[in-house]
């Protein structure tokens, strides 16, 4: 049997460490989804970039 586990968190360390894929939601909008490495090194969306670098949130 295969499982998919979804973790909803504001903890950036946990979000970067645990999942294969990360989705970033901002006030209910799905802003970006992709491999965790990409989200935390080269996000495509400016809102993701601003959030993971601590410009808001």
């Amino acid at each position, binding site marked *: 049997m295969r499982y998919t586990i979804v973790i909803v968190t504001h903890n*950036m*360390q946990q979000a*970067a460490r645990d999942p294969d894929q990360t989705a970033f939601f901002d006030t209910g909008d799905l802003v970006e989804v992709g491999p965790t490495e990409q989200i*935390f*090194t*080269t*996000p495509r969306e400016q809102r*993701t*970039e*601003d959030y*993971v*670098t*601590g*410009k*808001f*949130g």
Partner: protein
Amino acid sequence: MPTHTDKAYEAELKDLRDKLLEMGGLVERAISSSVRSITERDSAIAEDVKERDREINRMEVAVDGACRRLLALRQPAASDLRFITTALKIVTDLERMGDIAVNVAERAIDLNKAPALGPMHDLSRLAEMSERQLGRALDAFVTGNVTEAEEVMHGDDVLDALYLKLFNDLLGMMMEDSRNIRRATSLMFAAKYLERFGDHATNLAEMVVYMVRGTDVRHPKSRETAG
């Protein structure tokens, strides 16, 4: 452009950027002075370059420390992470460029002990071009200008061509008169150092492209082979 909500973090990143720029400025001055020491036949300038290299070395250690602290304490992500890893890479290039300026200064001291070996137009031009390559790479780093970084990368070919011309001219002088060999060899070394200085400026420019775009543009041919 939004800034970090944590103002101390914002200040630490700015301080790192300022340190790198200051170090870049010192390296620009060092290479320009070391070549001036040859063209103006003034060994005191060369001695000064050697002395000032200590400050460049000290700054390398300071930049390394600042990067380590930021990585350990701030867990940077995205553009901040790319900026800090770029800083860690380019600080090594800058320090090495400072050493190259010292190498040129040492050649200058040797050359200035004997009569001049003809005009130094091409060496001066090579030095100006190398210094300009560094200046533009640093500009691209500050402004995040990928176009300027790419121009620096392409500009290296022009520098290499001038180095080759100088190499052949000096070889000719050696063949003309064996008494020229020692001085021409020293000048050849100086020219090679300047050409290498330009290569480091290219490294800086490549890292700027990575920092801004997140794509690694180094060694494209090696990557094709690796498939």
